[in-house]
Each structure stands twice: as C-alpha cells, then as structure tokens.
C-alpha cells in the first residue's frame, strides 16, 4: 500500500525514501546507545564498580548473530539473482539463528546471575544487563521483520520484483545494524573491563 502511494512522489535522489528513513532511524538508535555507553563510562569512572568477566554465553551469541547476518546476506543476494531455492533455505535459517541469539543472550544473563551478578546490587552488572537487554529488544524488532520476510517468501508467488528486493534489503540493512551494534557493545564491554 505504501509503495503504491509512493509511486507518484517526485523523488529526487537515488536513494529510495524508505531506505533513507531506515538510515535516519538507525542514526537515532546510535545516539541512544552512545548515551548508554557514556553513562557506562561516567558511572564507572565515579567508582564503586565491580569488575567481572563476561559470561561465555555472550561469545556464543556473538558467533550466532554474525552467522545470521551472513546467511541473510547470502539469501538477499540469491533472491536478487533469482535463486529462489537458496533464498528459501537461508531465510528460515536466519530466523532460527535470530531466535537462537535471543535465547543465548537470556542464558548469558542467567550465567551472570549464577556468578552473583544481579540487577540489584552493584551497578556494574545492572548496566551490562540493561544495555544488552535493550539491544535484544531491538533484535526482537528485527525478528519481527524476519518473520514477515519468511511469510513473504513462502506465501507469495516466486517472483522477483523491485519492490520485494527493496523490502528484503530494508530487513537486511536493519539486521546488519543490530549485528554491528552487538559487536560494538561486546568490544565496548571488553575494553571497559
């Protein structure tokens, strides 16, 4: 419906408005995580801060989400080239990996609890939990997009249209974004220890 409405627009630039919008949204999200990072920095610098090692699970989840961006990327390329079979294999795999990421993050928080790190108590644990939970919330948004993408893949006729490429590309861009965001957060947590 939106695509139809946009048809008449007098577009000037090469970038599709929806793609552009997504970039704007992502820069806005960057500001939010920048705020959290600076909160972390300043709060840690003011003392009363416990140091601990990140749970193993966080590295596993990192591997999972990196793998999922790769599969999604290949799926996108396959779709563009008309390789519907590959696309239909990799898209559900990406979705499963995405869900696995959320589960592994959850296991990571449980592991933190086992180490005696809770939301209450010293702010060092709470900060990491809250920031990673907020990241996970954004991944959930991406999972919704992936579910839609899967529905499109299996319910729509196997046709490669410009509009469908665009739609998949939007999902891909966002998924890359949450992936990069997690890599950044992980590095940040590690550097700060």
């Amino acid at each position: 419906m939106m695509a139809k409405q946009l048809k008449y627009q007098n577009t000037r630039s090469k970038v599709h408005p929806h793609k552009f919008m997504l970039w704007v949204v992502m820069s806005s999200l960057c500001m939010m995580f920048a705020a959290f990072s600076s909160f972390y920095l300043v709060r840690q610098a003011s003392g009363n801060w416990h140091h601990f090692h990140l749970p193993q699970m966080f590295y596993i989840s990192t591997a999972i989400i990196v793998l999922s961006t790769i599969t999604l990327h290949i799926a996108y390329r396959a779709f563009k080239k008309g390789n519907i079979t590959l696309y239909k294999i990799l898209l559900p795999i990406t979705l499963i990996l995405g869900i696995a990421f959320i589960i592994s993050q959850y296991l990571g928080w449980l592991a933190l609890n086992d180490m005696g790190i809770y939301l209450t108590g010293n702010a060092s644990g709470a900060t990491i939990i809250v920031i990673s939970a907020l990241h996970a919330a954004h991944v959930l948004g991406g999972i919704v997009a992936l579910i839609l993408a899967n529905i499109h893949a299996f319910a729509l006729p196997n046709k490669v249209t410009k509009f469908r490429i665009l739609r998949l590309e939007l999902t891909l861009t966002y998924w890359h974004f949450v992936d990069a965001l997690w890599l950044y957060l992980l590095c940040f947590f590690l550097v700060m220890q």
Partner: protein
Amino acid sequence: MADLKHNEGLLVEEYGYEAIEDGFHDHHHGDKYQSGFITHYIFSQDHKMIAKQFLITGMFWGIIGGLMSLVFRMQLGFPDSDMSWLQPILRGWISIDNGVGTLDPQFYYALVTMHGTILVFFVLTAGLSGTFSNLLIPLQLGARDMASPLLNMMSYWFFFLSGAIMFASLFLSTGPFSGGWTAYPPLSALPQASSGSAGGMTLWLLSLVFFVVSVLLGGINYITTVLNLRTKGMSLWRMPLTIWAFFVTAILGLLSFPVLVSGFLLVMCDRGLGTSFFLDQIYIGGQALEQVGGSPILYQHLFWFLGHPEVYIIILPAMGLVSEVLSVNARKPIFGYHAMVLSILAIGFLSFIVWAHHMFMAGVNPFISNIFVIFTLIIAVPSAVKVFNWISTLYKGNIRFNSGMLFAIGFVSLFISGGLTGIFLGNSAIDIPMHDTYFVVAHFHIVMGVAAFFGMFAGVYHWFPKMYGRFMNDTLGKLHFWGTLIGAYAVFWPMHYMGMAGVPRRYYSFATFDFSNQFDLTNQFITIAAIITFGFQILFVVNFFYSIFYGKKQKQKNPYGATTLEWTTPIDAGHGNWPGGIPTVHRWAYDYGKNDGTMDREFIPQTEPVSPEEKEYDDKHLH
C-alpha cells in the same frame, strides 16, 4: 521509483506555472481519496489535515496548561485567599479548614510539573513543530505529501496517546507527577518518594516515551521529505527559511530524544527493578534503602543532553515562521539569507555541547564548567546574527502591520529580552546566585515560552487561510497581540528583580522568609497580569474557531503576494495539493521588491523562470 518519468510538459497556460507531470492523478484514488468522515478527519494521512490535528490538540493542551498556571499563580499571589471555590474541580486537592480553602502543597507541585511538561512537550514541540512542519514542508517544497503518510498519521496518534495517558494521570488519587518537568531522581526514581512519584510518575514516563515515538516518527518523515521530495529546481539553497528551520529541528529531535529515552529507561529500572543507577544512600521513614552507588547527576547529564537541544527544537520552528512572515510583510527579501541558514545550522550544532550550563550548581567540576560557559556564550553569536538580520529585514520595509506581522515583530523583541538574560546565566559565576531563582524562570519564559508562542501565533494568523480558506479577524488579532505582548512583559519582567533578590523558584509559599515579603505586591501584580493575559488568549481561541466557519473568505490564491509554493495550490487544495502537475522552481524564495536595471517588480513567485536579462544583470551585480 528510479524509472519514474518526468514528463516536463510546459503547462504554464493552464496553471500559471511551469509544471511537471508525475502521474499522480493517473491513480484512481485522486478525488475519492480518504473522503469518508473517519479517514478524512480522524485517521487522515493527508499532511494538511494532520497539521490541523496537531494544532487543535496543541491548543487544547495550551488551555489546560495555561489554566494550571493560573491556579498556582493564585497560590503565589494570594496565598491567604480562600480557594474553596475551586473545590468542585480540584476536589480533594483543596482542603477546607474553618471555611477557608487552601491548595494542597503536593498538588501545587503537581500543577507546576504538569504545566511545564505540557507546555514544553505537548504545546511548543508537538503543537508548534508538528503543526507547521506538516503543513508547510510538502506545500513549500512542492511535494504531494510526506515521504510516508502512514508514519505521519501514526506520529499524530502516538502524540494523542501520549496526551491521553498524561491526562489520565491528572485523575489519579495520588495525583500526577510532581517532581518538576525535568523529572530529576530521586523524586522520579522512587515511587515512595512523594505521592506524585507513584502512579503519576509511571504514567508520566509512559506518556513521554510515546511522545518521543511520535517526535521520531514525525522527524524521520520531515527529514526524508526535505531531502528526497523537493520539486524540480528546489535546491537546498532555494528553500524558504521555514523549511530550513523545520529540517534542523527534526535532526535535533532525532539525535537528542533517544538520549532522553535512555535516561528514562534507567529511571524505570530504578523504579521497578531495584537497580541503583541514580540512587544512593537514601533514607525513607528512617529506613535506609538498599540501593547504593548511583548518582542523580548522571540523570541530569542525560536529561539536559536532550533538554538543551529541546529548547531549540521549540524555538527554531518559531524562528523559521517569523523569518518568513517578516519578509513577506515587509515586502523585502530576508536580509542575509545565507547567514540565516548558517546560523540555524550553527545553533543546531552548538546546542549539543552546552547542556551542562543547566548544571553549574550541580557539583560539576568548575574547569569543565568553563568549557561549557564558552560554548554557551558562543551560541549568542548566531542568535545575534539572526536578530540583526530580522531587524535589517524590517529596516525601510514597506511594512504591513497585520496580526501575523505584529506577532513576528513581537517575537524579535522577546527573543532579544530573553536572550540577553541567557548571557547572564551562561556565565557560571553569575549563575551561582541566579540558579533556581525567578531570574531563570523569567529568562526561559520570555525567550522560549512567550517567544515561541509569538512565533506560533504569527504562523497561525499568517497561514490560517492555507488551512481553512478563510482569514482570521485582524482587529481581534491585533487586540490579542497588544494584550499578550504587554501582559507577557508584565508577568515576566518583574520576575527578574525577584530572582536577583534571590527569591527561589518552585516554592509553594514564602511566608516563612522575611526577605521576600517585599515582593508580596509584585506577586499579586504578576498573578493579576497572568489572569488578564490568559483572557486575551481566549480571544484568540474564539477568533480561531469562529473564523474556521465564518471568517472572511479567501478569494485569491495568493492573498499576501508571497513567492513561495504553498500559494500556488488551489484555495481548497485536495489530496496531492496541486490539481495538475507539480510546480517547478526557478529562483530563491525571497524575490520581493526586485527593483533593478531590468525590472521593477513587487514580488516574483519562485515558479517564475529567470529571464536572460535578469540573469545577466544578477550575475553582474550580485555575484
């Protein structure tokens, strides 16, 4: 999208401007688009209707927020008077003792908090930038609508939802939030800290999170529309200053509101999950809380990182509207167009690196304070550039003193008065005695509160025909102007003296201090002035609604002889704004009184091509 063909037929004869055919009317939805009552007036996706929704919702909140201020002004001006007559509305918040009704102190704080929140966010952010960005961005850029009409509609409805939640919080038995519009912890972070900190604060947070969603949805649309959907020939440097202002405002919102949300999320965790981000060693009822190690100062940083850009989010759209109204009604090009744009950009940039000037007294390291003093004072430079340019635009202008113009001129006066006190406060040494006194209240009400309202009024009077095809009554408008200008100065000018004498803000009563007794009469005067000024706003509201139905009809497409594209649409523009193709643009937005070797024209619309002689002359003399 990319294969969209522009069929640049010259349609000058038909529409009076050269147009591009974009195939808009080939789609069957052309006329019948959203013609049902619900899709037309309620869940509308047309930017013009959404603009009106923002405006009227903003007016509703303006009245509520204004009435609240009258109640607490009554308390400040006449603390001993009997308020029992308010009991039918305020009920339990008025306690009656020996037949004398007094305002509950807790509710006084709730009123102050709600007044601030409502006016800053609902009226001067959503009501101002929401209204005019929606109305003018597509119209002045030559776009059919916003980049995403759907998100645009959602932006309004999130605002509505946010307002509904805030409104509901007014009726809680524990009252709405009462810890100030800045919501500093611990009052905001501990539900048990005060009665307003309980359910009231929960709803306050929820409401503002939805509000941020609304601002972001609006903002991404404004930015995308400005960058992607300008008509042919509308280069960035040909955009009217209104659009520049809305554009930078949207960018500021997009970069600063998420930071506020991160602060809110941490407050929510402190409230609900027992974390201690902002809490440290607090005793309630003699009991120490378990939460230790947090720091409320960190919240202040997160808040003011939004808070300061927010004040420019409020004032920039007003500046844009004023620039446009001044130029049109002075019949002169805006003075220093490029300097105006650059100062908008400079203000936008600088507004991100001055936030700690709100925290000079919060224990920030004085050496760090110095840096913020310097950046803060630098903001005065682009601000002054704008003021000089507005005054130069007026100089020797052929001025039409209609209501819109009067409000625009009033804006300049107020911005100067309030900006000067900002420079006082920006010096940390002067801020030490002034902080949290009525001097600050005077500063920000004049420079932000009243000035932004003046910009908004200028915009409403000026563009009312664009919204409703009728004019507002000019006589009533002038009366409204003089009443508001004199009234606002009467209310806020004396507050400077009170602040310099050290009278603190956010006090329910001064009865226990001797030094402030001398201001009893001043306080009474301010309260009376506030009531009268509010009365003049009723004049505006009546004029507004009366004129929607019975105002003088707009007969010409371009009643002010303006150059910009919004006046090339039909008077009652339908969906898509232009009946045929979209007008194309050939010159900047300020060709007023062009009188040179080759021509003598009162104004030249942006749609008019530049003749070879004109170009030759301009190249020789202007570049």
